[in-house]
């Protein structure tokens, strides 16, 4: 009896394992991709406006293959959903979606699969930065344009465009905002603690560099900088330690993503440190997911600097340019917003010569956010 039970258990789990490991390529249609009806409707209508009667003009659908990294975070899920919303049948596209689950070999195979299926365009969010030259040459030979999003490819330039975030600008923006905010509040001395992201990640490197550049410029003091691995548990543990090492010595905490900020807030609650708009410590976060913007609106976070996951509209624009025979730019940085809790730091900040508005988070701003 027991043996039978164990066999049953074994087969059940083996089956579910197979189900997880199996290819997740699926043809997604507009209706299948909806999880929040209102959001996708908004996105779809927006996209429809930008491509008037695209389906009628060419007569048939444009097939796009999208090799996604995986589904490891809310950010990634938003990125996937953005693609599914934009490249819908209603907009004149047929999207072949592949989730490689963070396996770079599987991703390479997925791209080869797209070539065999004869898709019109391939979108890649590369899991690793190297090892792409062979497969991109195959794409070129097959005459399929490749568009890279989010992460970068270092060892090949056989792609049309790269669309992504400028992490260093995010760090610079954070610094410039802090300068304006501190001036407005009459804070003369900045003693900052930084909770970094995963060591070696491009977001970590860019945000650290950007903020440090501003800190050096204004002579701020960065007390310590430790990695919280982009997780809430990590942010909590690092902040707990910071609260003991630098009790009463810091007035700024920079968290390099939202999850770390949640953890840091819990740790400061425990240690009895007040933060946010009415607190002793200025706390800043990156990514700007909806739950974190809620915290900004409530004044628990002072500012949040967006890392836009919605690359699909930009990719769509590139595809339209290619369809029209134009040459798109090689590197395209996405527009990103800087969100703040109070409007005392002025209405805009200038980063790298570009002036960008500071958005004060209200319920309307929050409701308009798709992720």
């Amino acid at each position: 009896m027991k043996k039978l039970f164990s066999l049953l258990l074994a087969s059940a789990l083996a089956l579910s394992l197979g189900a997880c490991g199996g290819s997740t390529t699926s043809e997604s249609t507009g209706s299948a991709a909806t999880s929040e009806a209102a959001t996708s409707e908004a996105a779809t209508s927006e996209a429809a406006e930008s491509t008037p009667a695209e389906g009628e003009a060419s007569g048939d659908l444009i097939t796009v293959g999208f090799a996604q990294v995986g589904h490891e975070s809310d950010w990634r899920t938003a990125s996937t959903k953005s693609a599914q919303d934009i490249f819908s049948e209603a907009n004149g596209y047929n999207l072949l979606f592949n989730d490689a689950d963070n396996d770079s070999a599987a991703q390479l195979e997925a791209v080869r699969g797209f070539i065999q299926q004869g898709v019109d365009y391939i979108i890649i969010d590369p899991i690793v930065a190297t090892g792409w030259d062979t497969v991109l040459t195959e794409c070129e030979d097959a005459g399929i344009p490749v568009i890279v999003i989010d992460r970068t490819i270092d060892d090949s330039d056989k792609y049309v465009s790269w669309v992504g975030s400028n992490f260093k600008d995010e760090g610079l923006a954070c610094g410039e905002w802090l300068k304006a905010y501190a001036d407005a509040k009459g804070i003369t001395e900045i003693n900052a603690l930084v909770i970094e992201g995963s060591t070696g990640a491009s977001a970590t490197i860019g945000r650290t560099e950007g903020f440090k550049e501003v800190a050096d410029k204004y002579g701020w003091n960065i007390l310590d900088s430790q990695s919280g691995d982009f997780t809430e548990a990590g942010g909590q543990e690092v902040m707990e330690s910071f609260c003991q090492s630098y009790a009463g010595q810091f007035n700024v905490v920079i968290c390099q993503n939202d999850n770390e900020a949640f953890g840091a807030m819990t740790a400061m609650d425990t240690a009895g440190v007040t933060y946010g708009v009415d607190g002793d410590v200025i706390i800043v976060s990156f990514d700007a997911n909806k739950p974190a913007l809620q915290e900004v609106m409530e004044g628990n976070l002072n500012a949040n600097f967006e890392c836009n996951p919605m690359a699909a509209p930009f990719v769509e624009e590139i595809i339209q340019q290619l369809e029209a025979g134009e040459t798109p730019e090689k590197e395209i940085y996405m527009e990103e917003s800087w969100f703040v809790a109070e409007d005392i730091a002025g209405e805009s900040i200038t980063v790298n010569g570009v002036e960008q508005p500071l958005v004060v988070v209200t319920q309307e701003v929050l409701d308009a956010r798709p992720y």
Partner: protein
Amino acid sequence: MNKGKKITQQQLFLPVVCVLLVLAVNIFYDVSQGNEFYNFFKITLTNDVLQGRLINILNRGSEVAILAIGMTLVVSASAGTDISVGSVMSLCASFCCMLVAGYGVSSVSSPDEFAMPLVVGLLGALVMGLVCGAFNGALVAYLNIQPMVATLILWSAARAIGLLLCNNLIVYVRDDTFGLFGGYLGPIPTPILIAAVCVAATSLVLKKTALGMYVQSVGINKRASRIAGLNSQKIIFLCYLICGLCAGIAGIVASSRITSADSNNIGLNMELDAILAVALGGNSLGGGKFSLAGSIIGAYTIQAITTTMYNLGVSTEVAPVFKAVVVIVIVAIQAPPVRAWFKKRAAAKAVQKGVASV
């Protein structure tokens, strides 16, 4: 003299010395920094809760300590390790939050929004832990599959199943009652209490019943134990069951700390810490004789190293290297040839003294 010899010969002597050595590093550091020498060991009651580095070590080390209980039994009985505990932790946490929040819901913030009462979620997590333990146990005990291979299945699958349960989202259960298990009960961090209860319950069972002896005997020689009348398979199965339950409890603690189920990160690589804890406790990974107390000390040694790194302000990039060096030193001190050398030296000294006194 006689007494001193006895202490050094005890099994727990070296693990205890090692954890004290790690802690002692902080005294040197604090003195060199001009702080009070007891800075690291200071415990204060701030904001109505106990705070201090020692509390941090006990608090943050709880999950590994709880896992180490199950891992010790598994190692002893089956001479193999359960490498699935980290993933099972994640699965149990996901299952718990999924039950409470409802499938596909990414965030709930008060009991009115709960799909099911919190108790159901917590019990669900424990049952899920037991099911995973039973699965591993069945493969190892009844199908005679190598423990590492058998548990490899859940090592890779459990986290993925957890992600499916959570619809690939981080499920937030922002509720104070749920947060209690990873927060504070009065002034004391709850994880410390949970770990203490788990350790106390297990050692009580091992002391009051013959289970401990049975486990050791099966680990030393499975066949001989069976011939002697023990149901070896049942005992190995039971050990994996307990290990699964421990993973479930640790999963609840880990997810309660962040009041959410972060399937990708909860318990990540924690199986390795649990195995290391067993080894640092002076236990042989070859099975047989075991010391539960040793494993628990080992678990807190690992956290002591991590917290020391924070105290010393070692940058995150190089911290793993320092950690590795410390672990190598600790393991080397406890290696049989080194132990034998110490023993020989002590014996030689005793002889010399004997000669001198004559």
